[in-house]
């Protein structure tokens, strides 16, 4: 068997549509994960204790089980509790919840890492609790957690490939199907590796550029 690039060219439209789904789900799940993760972290940090414990349990379950199992359970087990979702919404929901669990831990650690003295200085000049959260805690926490957030986004790109098992028409599903139809396994797997690595690299670069731009806000 020889490496035949023409197979790839012929199937370009299908590949591009798969890529679009991968990108769409990745960006949406990252955004939803950050938003939900932030809310969870805020409730765990500032909210009542019972709620915090319940959220903690949910986070531990999501972090303590393989994403593959979670997505299977959501897609195939969901209908038993009246949650029948199409592949794309199921994949998006599953990945967002998974992402939220990790982001919430990142944000929680971030809240704890803001020096107490910065909050006390704000209290001393009369900022209210809500103003302290908005003006001091959130911006400082964001600076602190930026590298871990980029790291998490990178992990999420790669996890989108798992969604192929519930037939989400993303890059892995589309391209590996193409590979089996055309007997071009090596070519398709190689292409997939290049695509994911390209996305990861781009994300990493964007993250580092952002960090550099924000570096003057670093802790003195």
């Amino acid at each position, binding site marked *: 068997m020889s490496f035949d690039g023409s197979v790839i060219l012929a199937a370009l439209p299908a590949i591009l549509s798969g890529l679009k789904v991968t990108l769409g789900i990745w960006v949406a799940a990252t955004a939803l994960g950050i938003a939900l993760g932030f809310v969870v972290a805020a409730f765990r940090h500032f909210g009542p204790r019972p709620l915090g414990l319940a959220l903690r349990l949910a986070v531990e379950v999501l972090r303590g089980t393989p994403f593959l199992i979670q997505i299977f359970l959501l897609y195939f087990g969901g209908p038993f509790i009246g949650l029948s979702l199409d592949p794309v919404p199921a994949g998006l929901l599953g990945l967002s919840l998974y992402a939220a669990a990790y982001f919430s831990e990142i944000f929680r650690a971030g809240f704890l890492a803001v*020096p107490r*003295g*910065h909050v*006390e*200085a*704000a*209290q*001393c*000049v*009369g*900022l209210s609790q809500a*103003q302290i959260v908005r*003006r*001091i805690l959130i*911006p*400082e926490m964001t*600076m602190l957690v930026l590298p871990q957030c980029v790291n998490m986004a990178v992990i999420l790109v790669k996890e989108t490939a798992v969604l192929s098992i519930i037939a989400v028409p993303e890059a892995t599903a589309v391209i590996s199907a193409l590979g089996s139809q055309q007997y071009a396994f090596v070519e398709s797997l190689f292409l997939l590796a290049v695509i994911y690595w390209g996305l990861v690299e781009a994300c990493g670069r964007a993250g580092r550029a952002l960090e550099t731009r924000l570096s*003057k*806000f*670093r*802790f*003195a």
Partner: protein
Amino acid sequence: MTLPAPAIAIRRLSKSYGRTEVLHGIDLEIARGATTCLIGPSGSGKSTLLRCIAFLEEATSGTILIDGQPLGFEEQAAGRRVRLPPQRIRKVRSGIGMVFQQFNLWPHMTALGNVTEALVTVKGLSRQEADARGMAQLRRVGLEARARHYPSELSGGQQQRVAIARALALEPEILLFDEPTASLDPELTGEVLNVMRDLGGEGMTMVVVTHEIGFAATVGQRIVFLDHGRVLLNGTPAELFAAPRHPRLTQFLETYLDRGAAMLLKPA
């Protein structure tokens, strides 16, 4: 003749962490317009006392009056302490500024941003008005030129001067300092102490926890020596440092020989 009310009146103030009492019924009056230096061995409760005055810690019992107004709690006839409503607490607290050993500037705001933050969010001033006032305070500490710098772009001494400007911006009656130069390199302590000296000269009421005995002896009008959670000595520098000296104070000063106290120990 009635004496003016002291800037701060502390009565039978005790503070415990869990079961350990670290302040044992402190009685202390801080004179208006004077610089009072709080000295004492490590762990004697200086920071705790200062933080109680800033209401960053809540005393376990006793009262603090700021300008005659109860801070945080009010003692009622039956000796019960009741917590005052948040609004009143904030009102009294607004007369007090605090400067920390670790500066505690907010890293995501410029020097000017740090100074004007409360003017905008708390006082509701317009951006322009706040900036004008903020610049005036930065000028006061000699840092006009650094207004647009972030804390990470400033030296320790400059950061501490910004922190002083931030506290001054709210025009407090009283400024509290907790070892303001303790985390600075020796060559940077001077610029901060000079700013504080100027403020003292302008008649600001200041309470300064410090290990800079030289500063305490020359700028402090009152020295309070704290030992094991009690006020052991309270007087002018001349009274405290002149022989015969209290043995605990002598012992304390001897441990600070290398920190500017040597001149005080020379036999007269």
